[in-house]
Structures are given as structure tokens and as C-alpha cells.
């Protein structure tokens, strides 16, 4: 080996080559953090008051109180579950034609564009805002929630369905088309078999989401278990609130396990 002196220092090449930009970003991030923390208004007195309440809340889980508000919990839960199922079914029924219409390889341009704008509209408004408007329109109660969740389902499912259809190999679609099949036959034979397993998987996933969301939109008056939870917390009945939370977690867990089980069987 030759006796050349090798460098004794080495620095890893930085992620951002331009030093000005790099330090600028670091300084900007630091400044932002400082400003954000400085403008954060914290009421320390109120916070100190919160400590015993937090302890009381955690203690409420041991054991939670299912009994004393059972009537409200039961009706809220029924509303949530029925709302989740019906809105998913109706949402799918509407999503399928819209999803097909929003697939570039199937639909003519004007249908494609209108379906895509429906999807964009549904995706850009969050559930809670849609719920506020719909409660104003059709009144308090689970029907407003049902409409909200159906609307949200459309944006979610149609978009994914359309993407799935666009991913189908053109050759297999052409093959069915070349037999002289009608449009419906073509959908039935060329498209449906290819997207069906994933559609079922997505529907189950959406059912799960709709249940979770049904617990939220109750806060603005659209029915469901969220309304029950809201009331319980407003009255500081932490042990009933704990019961509701545990029920939500249990149902979501159950939904997750069973939907992954069904998806495995379908695929």
C-alpha cells in the first residue's frame, strides 16, 4: 500500500445541496415554531384545573357505566349502525354508475367531466360541513346524517372505482367488445369480474369509515352515537362517556377484523 495521506474528515453530502436554501429552510422552520408556540394561548389556571378532571376521566374507565344511560346509548348506537349501513348501500348504488362514468377508458368526455366534478365536489367538503348544511335543510336527526354519509361515500368509492376501471388491461376489454356485446353486457363481462373483488373490499372499508364518521356528525345534530357522547360529556358524565368510547373502539376493531377476513375470502 502506498503511503499517501488520506483525508481525515468526511461529511455526508447534505440532502439539499444549496447551502443558502438549506439554512434558509432550517431558519424558517425555527422561526415558524417559535412564532407558533409564542402565539399559543394557554390558560394555565384552567389547565391546572384539568388535572383532577383528567384523572377522573381515566378513572371512569374502571369500570365504565353502561347502565345509567343505557337508553340513550342504545338508541344512539342503533342510529349510528343503521345510518352507516344504509348510507353505505345507497352510496355504493350511486357510486357505481358515477364511477363507471368517471373512467376515462369507458365514458365519453362530457360524461367523464361531469362525473369527475361530482366526485371533486364530494371530496372537497368534509362530512362535518356537509352535515351542518344538511341539518339546516332537512332538520335534526339521523336522516341528515344518512344523507351526509351517502354523499361522502360517493366521492370516496366512485374515485377509487374509476381508477380501478382505468387500470384494467385494455386488451381484455377489447376482447369482449369485439364479440359485439351490448354496453351492459360489456360492463357485465369485461369490467365487472375485474373490479368486483376490490369493490367489495372498498365497500367494507367504507362501511367501517361511515360508522366512525357517524360518531362525529352527531355533534352538529345529525343523529347517532356522537350525539349521545356529546350529551354525556356536556354533563361531565365521564363514566357514560367512557362506556360510549369503549363501544366505538370495540365496534371499529370488530369491523376491521371481520372486513379483513371477508376480503381474504373474496380475493
Amino acid at each position: 500500500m502506498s503511503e499517501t495521506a488520506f483525508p481525515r474528515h468526511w461529511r455526508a453530502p447534505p440532502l439539499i445541496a444549496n447551502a443558502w436554501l438549506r439554512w434558509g429552510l432550517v431558519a424558517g422552520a425555527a422561526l415558524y415554531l417559535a412564532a407558533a408556540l409564542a402565539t399559543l394561548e394557554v390558560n394555565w389556571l384552567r389547565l391546572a384545573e384539568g388535572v383532577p378532571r383528567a384523572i377522573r376521566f381515566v378513572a371512569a374507565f374502571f369500570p365504565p357505566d353502561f347502565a345509567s344511560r343505557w337508553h340513550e346509548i342504545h338508541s344512539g348506537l342503533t342510529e349510528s349502525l343503521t345510518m352507516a349501513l344504509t348510507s353505505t348501500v345507497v352510496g355504493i348504488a350511486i357510486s357505481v354508475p358515477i364511477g363507471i362514468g368517471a373512467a376515462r377508458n369507458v365514458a365519453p368526455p362530457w360524461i367523464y367531466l361531469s362525473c369527475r366534478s361530482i366526485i371533486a365536489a364530494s371530496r372537497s367538503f368534509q362530512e362535518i360541513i356537509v352535515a351542518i348544511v344538511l341539518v339546516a335543510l332537512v332538520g335534526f336527526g339521523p336522516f341528515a346524517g344518512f344523507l351526509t354519509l351517502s354523499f361522502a361515500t360517493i366521492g370516496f368509492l366512485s374515485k377509487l372505482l374509476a381508477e380501478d376501471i382505468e387500470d384494467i388491461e385494455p386488451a381484455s376489454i377489447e376482447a369482449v367488445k369485439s364479440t359485439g356485446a351490448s354496453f351492459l353486457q360489456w360492463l357485465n363481462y369485461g369490467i365487472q369480474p375485474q373490479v368486483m373483488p376490490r369493490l367489495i373490499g372498498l365497500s367494507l372499508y367504507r362501511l367501517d369509515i361511515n360508522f366512525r364518521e357517524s360518531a362525529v356528525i352527531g355533534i352538529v345534530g345529525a343523529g347517532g352515537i356522537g350525539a349521545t357522547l356529546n350529551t354525556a360529556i356536556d354533563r361531565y358524565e365521564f363514566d357514560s362517556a367512557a362506556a360510549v368510547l369503549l363501544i366505538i373502539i370495540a365496534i371499529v376493531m370488530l369491523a376491521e377484523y371481520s372486513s379483513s377476513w371477508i376480503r381474504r375470502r373474496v380475493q
Partner: protein
Amino acid sequence: MLRLEGLTKRYRTGDLALDGVTLEVPAGQVMALIGPSGAGKSTLIRCVNRLVDPSAGRIFLGDIEITRLGHGELRLARQRMGMIFQEFALVERLTVMENVLSGQLGKVGFWRSYFRRFPGDAVAQAYAMLERVGLTEQANKRADALSGGQRQRVGIARALVQNPDILLVDEPTASLDPKTSRQIMRLLCELCAERGLAAVINIHDVQLAQLFVQRVVGLRAGRVVYDGAPENLNADVLTQIYGEEDWTATFGRKRVHGERDDAVEVDEERMAGLT
């Protein structure tokens, strides 16, 4: 230098990968370990630095009994054993230099290594190693930008930066083309000679082994069935190691398929020693 006494490994699946292997590798000797897939070659190498924990038997590195060491002492012992892998096992998203320097991790504190502030000696040594394997130009490239032969050179540099006493080499050429395979084997053996290093090289290419090593050990179903000079390998010996085959026509070319590969089991156990 390295001594195995009755080394036995039985996996949780019940497969006996090593069955009472007794071996000694003196300092400075380059030894090839040959045998069919599933004979326990990978397991043997991984038992030596305890990436896989043996079920029975003892391993000595010099005077240290590897099989008895606790976590901290094992780390020190591992620094004395450089390991080179079949699929190179470079950290793909780190630079070549970081990969080479990672051979020094055992000697550097966590925060120093985290901020990449390695001691000057270590950096100079890493540069020297890169020059020796001909990769000085690539020091700041990411490992996944290199070709297979280049990656294996980085792997070798990483192992040598540890300043080990022995190299454990697991199928160094299995992912390489024939020409690169020879270059890598030559480089390995030259480096061992330069530094007086002992090496255990798992290899399935019998011809390649014969070209470069001083001693061949044949493993079959976890037992040593041949131990001798590479020149003495003949059709009978190969039949003994690999099973019946027309060795005159396909002398030492192919591994025999159909036996369970111990790589799968190694896979299951490899992460166990991590945490």
C-alpha cells in the same frame, strides 16, 4: 484462531441444521465451506458471530468462548469478525462512505456515529480501504447506485475497516457474473494474505473454491464429510458431499436442488439477536 466444538443447531421447526460440527481454522488460513443447499453452511457462519444462536456446542475465537458471551461482550467479539454477505447487505439508502464507516460503529459512541463525526483515523482508514478496492470515486454515491461487483467491494471494505481477525464470508459470488466472481474471490484472498487474516468462505461453486483457497471443508446435512486440500477433491468426494451425479461431465458446477434451504430458517431467527 477459530475453533468449533460439537456445534449443533436445531431450529424451532425441528430441522437439524448442524449436527456436532468440530473444526479448527488456524490464523491466516482461508477455508472454503462447500455443500448442497440446506447442508448448514449459512447456519454455521451465522452461529460463529451469533446472528443465530447455536443449540449446543462451543465456539472459541482465540481464547474467548463466543458461545458464553453476554450482549456487551458479544459486541466486542463481533468487532473482531468481519462478515460479508451474499446479497451484499449494504444499507441501500446510505452513501458508500457511510456503509464503509459503519464497520467502525462498535468503536464509536452513538451520538458521534449519529452525526457522522467519525474519528480522523477511522475516516482515513476508510478512504484507504476504498482506494484498495478501487472505489475512491464512488465515496459519496448512494449504495443503490452501484453495480453488483462494486457493491460487494463496498461490503468487503466495510468488513475490513473493522480490523477483524477473521472474515466470515457467506456466498460472496452467488449474485455476481462469472468474471466478477473471480475478481471478488481474488480480491478477498489477496486481502487475507496481505493482512494475515483467516477466512471461512461459504461457496457453492466448487471450481472457484479450488482456484483460490487453501483448504476445503465439505458439509452434508449438518456434518463434516470432507476436510482436506482442494486438489484432493474428486468425483467420489463430491458424490459424498452432494450425492449421486455424473461429476465427470459437470464437474463441480451446480448445486444440487431438492433439499430444504436453511436460508429460510436463518430468516426466521436472524432478527432475534437484534434487540
